């Protein structure tokens, strides 16, 4: 099947078709998921194939949508519940973080929550402050949740399969600006296991750690740096919770210089956790501080002129890589 190309969105959609076909316990509930097939078309065709019993258009009720998923999961189904925009996790945060995340633990293990929450994150569409956020750091701070953020069509399909088959609550975040990105995708259903990062470019000088759309920006920056004689290793985390810290630390020990990149606000973003862990686990290996690229400390502006300046880009990543490379190794005085 090599060479078969699908878009990121098609890959997701194909995963949904196959997952629903293999397991009658899988259903989808959310706003405009059935008739419309999702705001961005993620669920197109599923109503025709699986009918109204399994494709449910709900009222605008993000708390009840997530709660529906929790209750149905506890009762034995395998729900996929959709929040149109990642910003809306803030509307249903109680159900996500106080209920779904904690239920199994609070109940002493006597519950299983095979629920996947799908949503669309990221900026770049001039959708302004309430429709563009990357809020994964909040979710990763809540024990009990898993958080998946695919960066390629291949992963979008394979990670979705793993998420839906997983017995824990998973938040699966597509990136709004990647729907049209194409890539090789096998026809049969396969899993990309949660918690395993991918080294998408091997290199020896510096490691760039990213996920979601920034994983491709990181590759673009690495290409630029290659022309400048800097050999970047690029890691695509794929799953941000669980975090594949082994892969990260191994690479840090190899290259000794690290740049962590995400679209989310830099302050308190996942990059902070990654930087903190790297210096914990590879302190003696670091030739420079772990650098972080993220959004500045402001809400997301509407105007393209401002949004472009706001969202991290290959150029900004490249600049940070250069700064990290130019930093003299410890002991070398300038």
């Amino acid at each position: 099947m090599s060479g078969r190309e699908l878009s990121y969105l098609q890959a997701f959609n194909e995963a949904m078709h196959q997952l629903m076909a293999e397991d009658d316990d899988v259903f989808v509930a959310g706003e405009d998921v059935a008739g419309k097939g999702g705001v961005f078309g993620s669920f197109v065709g599923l109503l025709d194939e699986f009918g109204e019993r399994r494709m449910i258009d709900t009222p605008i009720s993000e708390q009840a949508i997530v709660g529906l998923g929790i209750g149905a999961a506890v009762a034995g189904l395998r729900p996929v519940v959709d929040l149109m925009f990642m910003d809306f996790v803030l509307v249903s945060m109680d159900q996500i973080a106080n209920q779904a995340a904690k239920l199994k633990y609070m109940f002493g293990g006597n519950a299983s929550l095979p629920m996947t929450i799908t949503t669309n994150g990221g900026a770049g569409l001039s959708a302004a402050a309430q429709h563009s956020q990357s809020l994964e750091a909040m979710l990763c701070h809540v024990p009990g949740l898993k958080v998946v953020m695919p960066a390629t069509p291949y992963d979008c399909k394979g990670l979705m399969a793993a998420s839906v088959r997983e017995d824990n609550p998973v938040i699966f975040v597509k990136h709004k600006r990647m729907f049209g990105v194409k890539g090789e995708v096998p026809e049969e259903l396969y899993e990309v296991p949660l918690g395993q990062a991918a080294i998408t470019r091997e290199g020896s000088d510096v490691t760039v750690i990213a996920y979601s759309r920034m994983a491709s920006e990181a590759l673009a920056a690495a290409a630029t740096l290659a022309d400048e004689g800097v050999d970047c290793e690029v890691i695509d985390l794929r799953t941000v919770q669980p975090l594949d810290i082994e892969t990260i630390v191994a690479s840090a020990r190899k290259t000794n210089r690290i740049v962590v990149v995400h679209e989310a606000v830099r302050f308190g973003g996942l990059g902070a956790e990654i930087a903190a862990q790297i210096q914990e686990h590879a302190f003696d290996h670091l030739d420079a501080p772990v650098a972080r690229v993220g959004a500045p400390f402001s809400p997301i502006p509407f105007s393209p002129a401002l949004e472009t300046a706001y969202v991290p880009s290959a150029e900004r990543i490249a600049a940070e890589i250069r700064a990290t490379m130019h930093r003299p190794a410890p002991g070398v005085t300038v």
Partner: protein
Amino acid sequence: MPLDPEIVKDLHRRMVRIRFFEEAAGRLFEANKMPGFIHLYVGQEAVAAGVSVALRDEDQISSTHRGHGHLVAKGGDLNKMMAELMGKATGYCNGKGGSMHICDLELNMLGANGIVGGGVPIAVGAGFANKYSGNETVSVVFFGDGSTNIGAFHEAANMAAALKLPVLFVCENNGYAEYTPREQSMAIKDVAERAGAYGMPSKIVDGMDAMAVFEATESALVSVRAGEGPYFLECKTYRYYNHHGIQNLGLSYRTDEEVEEWKGRDAIDAIEARMVADGVASEAEVEANRASIQAEVDEAIDFADSSPMPDPADLLDNVYSDAVSSDAVSSDAVNSEVRS
């Protein structure tokens, strides 16, 4: 038509079981043997008992912060309950949940909840699963008058109605949310008026009368099981103790007279009087039943008392269903492995 004597006895038994369990829990709390918060169900027994006698085993119930009564009524194991309230390893949640998270999924009791209104969407989800599976099972959600002011309640009630789900909404209107009288937080006379906002049929019932609650539940369940969508039952009731803990009289937000007045309509007193009057049971039989339940409660105290505390080594168990992932995300666990 008088009720089946077996049902009356069952109602009585469940109510006494709640009352004795709660009174014991209250005394242990007072004696500092019970950590955390405790919200006693005493006074409201007719609601949990009346509803649960009308249910089938497979029907689910979901509860609130005031959740002991619902679990006892559904047949909860008093040993495991008492042990959980004391934070013991032998408790329902191995001591991890406590009073506000007590549950028994085998009995289809989907859990108490520490977030007011937080359990309502989850109950609706269980109702969805019932409809999805095409069975006749009903999901019953208990909630207080105060919780109907929170958004999650509203969304869940509307969702149940819009999707025509088999959910029975049981509002326990005890007149207060913590220390605030109901009238102050909603400009309506009966909570049941809210059902109209969802196109849900509703009924108001005397929540101090277990038989009335039972009968109202039975008839509500007919339409719910028939797939006609959710139903809203408002039970007017009262909690004898303070919102939290064991104080009873002398509270600033309600009069002692009010408390006494409601106690004068005590559901257990009433049903016992009626049992004897109707010849359902003799006074001696009633007394024997009470004694055997008290023995069960006493045994539960002994069980809990003599149970061990949980082992801190189990602290990180059951965060996830797979041990692997919960280790993988624990940076502390990773520490030892990869620390250079």
